[in-house]
C-alpha cells in the first residue's frame, strides 16, 4: 500500500473541502478503500477520515419513510426495528451482505461507493488492462474467466458486476441519495459503464453523501431480499432480487410491484418490465414465472456467466411468490 497523508475531518464542510483536493479520498468504514489501497487499485495521496464526524449516523423512520445518515453502520440499520418492519427487504439485504465484522465497519454512504469485485479490476499487477482503472487500456475480463461477470448493462468497455445488496433494495423502493443539499434518485446515482466505466457514481469532487432516504410504501412494507450464491453465507450474489408487493383489497390482484436485481448487472438493476407485466394481474405462479423472464430482456453473456440469464428470472419468480403467498 502506497503511503498517504492522513487528515481527520472535524466537520462535514472540512471533509468536503479536503476531499475536493486532487488525490484525496474520503475514508469512512474502510472496507472498500483500505482493501483497494492494498490491492494497488486505490492510490490516495490524502485520506480524509470522516468516520469521527458527529451527527451523520442517525436512523429515523416515520409515516413518510426512512432517513438514514451516511455514517450509520450496516449492522445498525439491519437491526433497526422500524427498518425491519417497514422495509424488510432493506434489512434482509444488509444481513445477507458481507460478514458481521464488515457490517460493523461499513457505513451506508460507503456502501453506495462500494466498487466491483471483478478479479481483473482488483489485480493491476497481473492485469494492466482495465478500462475502469486505466481508461482506454482495454478489458481483461472480456475473453477471460467470466463466471461472475454481468449480463445486463454491459458495454464493449466493461462487464464488471456491481456487487452490492443494499442498493438493489434501495433502487426497488425509489430511494434518494442526499449529497448535502443536492438530491438524486439512487437509480441515477449509479452510472452505466458505457464508454466511461471509470465513472461509476454521479458524485463530484467536493461532494459527500450525507444520507439516504426511502419513501414509505405498502410494497416496501411487504418486501423481501432473496440472494442466491455459491456458498450459503459471506458470499456475493450469483443472482439476487429485491421484491415488494401490494395487493388490491381482494388480496390477490397485484396493485403495486417492485423488482430489482443484484449480482447480474453493472449497476443495481430495476426490472420495470416485470413490474408492468404483473400489475393488475392475479398472483398466479405460471404468470409470475413468465413475467419474470422479462427481468433479463436484452441480456448478453460472455460464456461462463450464461447461467445468470437462466438463474435471475428464477430468483425473481421465487421472491415474488414467496412474498406474495405469505399473507
Amino acid at each position, binding site marked *: 500500500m502506497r503511503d498517504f497523508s492522513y487528515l481527520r475531518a472535524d466537520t462535514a464542510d472540512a471533509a468536503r473541502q479536503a476531499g475536493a483536493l486532487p488525490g484525496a479520498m474520503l475514508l469512512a468504514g474502510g472496507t472498500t478503500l483500505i482493501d483497494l489501497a492494498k490491492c494497488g487499485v486505490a492510490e490516495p495521496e490524502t485520506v480524509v477520515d470522516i468516520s469521527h464526524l458527529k451527527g451523520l449516523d442517525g436512523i429515523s423512520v416515520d409515516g413518510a419513510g426512512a432517513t438514514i445518515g451516511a455514517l450509520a453502520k450496516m449492522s445498525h440499520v439491519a437491526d433497526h426495528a422500524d427498518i425491519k418492519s417497514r422495509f424488510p427487504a432493506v434489512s434482509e439485504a444488509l444481513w445477507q451482505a458481507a460478514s*458481521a465484522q464488515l457490517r460493523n465497519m461499513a457505513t451506508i454512504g460507503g456502501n453506495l461507493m462500494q466498487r466491483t469485485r471483478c478479479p481483473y479490476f482488483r489485480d493491476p499487477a497481473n492485469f494492466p488492462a482495465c478500462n475502469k482503472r486505466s481508461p482506454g487500456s482495454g478489458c481483461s475480463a472480456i475473453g477471460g474467466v467470466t463466471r461472475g461477470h454481468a449480463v445486463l448493462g454491459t458495454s464493449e468497455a466493461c462487464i464488471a458486476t456491481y456487487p452490492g445488496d443494499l442498493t438493489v433494495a434501495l433502487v426497488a423502493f425509489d430511494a434518494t441519495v442526499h449529497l448535502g443539499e443536492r438530491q438524486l434518485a439512487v437509480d441515477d446515482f449509479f452510472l452505466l459503464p458505457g464508454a466511461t466505466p471509470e465513472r461509476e457514481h454521479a458524485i463530484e469532487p467536493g461532494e459527500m453523501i450525507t444520507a439516504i432516504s426511502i419513501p414509505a410504501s405498502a410494497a416496501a412494507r411487504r418486501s423481501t431480499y432473496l440472494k442466491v450464491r455459491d456458498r450459503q453465507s459471506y458470499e456475493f450474489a450469483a443472482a439476487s432480487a429485491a421484491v415488494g408487493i401490494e395487493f388490491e383489497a381482494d388480496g390477490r390482484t397485484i396493485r403495486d410491484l417492485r423488482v430489482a436485481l443484484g449480482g447480474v448487472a453493472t449497476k443495481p438493476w430495476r426490472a420495470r418490465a416485470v413490474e408492468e407485466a404483473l400489475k393488475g394481474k392475479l398472483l398466479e405462479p405460471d404468470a409470475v414465472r413468465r413475467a419474470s423472464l422479462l427481468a433479463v430482456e436484452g441480456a448478453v453473456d460472455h460464456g461462463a456467466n450464461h447461467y445468470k440469464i437462466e438463474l435471475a428470472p428464477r430468483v425473481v419468480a421465487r421472491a415474488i411468490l414467496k412474498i406474495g403467498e405469505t399473507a
Partner: protein
Amino acid sequence: MTSRTSIHLTINGHDHELEVEPRVTLLDALRDHLGLTGTKKGCDQGQCGACTVHVDGQRVLACLTLAAQAQGRSITTIEGLAEQDGTLHAVQAAFLEQDAFQCGYCTPGQIMSAVACIREGHAGSDDEIREYMAGNLCRCGAYPHIVAAVRQAAMEAAS
C-alpha cells in the same frame, strides 16, 4: 513521502503512544509496533476474520482499520479477554473444552468474534451461530467444534 504521525491508542484498558506512517493498519500497529501478536494476520484483506478485534465493543477487522482511525476508540484484543489473575473468559474456556481448534491460527479471531456474537444475541441456534460466525474462516476445518464451543459459552452466558 514517508510521513509519520503520532497516535494514541487505548488497548485493553492501557494507553499507548506510537509513531507510525498513516498507512499502518491497526493490525500492524498491534503486532509490529506494540508486540501484541495474539491478533493474527491471515489474508490481510478483510476476507478471513483472523484479525478480529473489538473497537468500542463491536467486532471489526483490524486489517482494514487504520491505526490512526482507531485513535479515541477503546480497543480490545484477545490479550485483554482473560481476567487479571489469568482466569480465562468463558468463550476461551469453552474453546479449550470443546477442542475447537487444530493449528490455532484462526482461534483468536474466532474467539473475539464469538464473544461479540453471543453479546449481540446471535448465538441462539447452531444455524444462527454458523451464519453470524461466517466471517471467520478456519483453514483446518474445525467448524463443528467451534459451533459447539460457541453454543456452550452462549448457554452459560444465558444461565
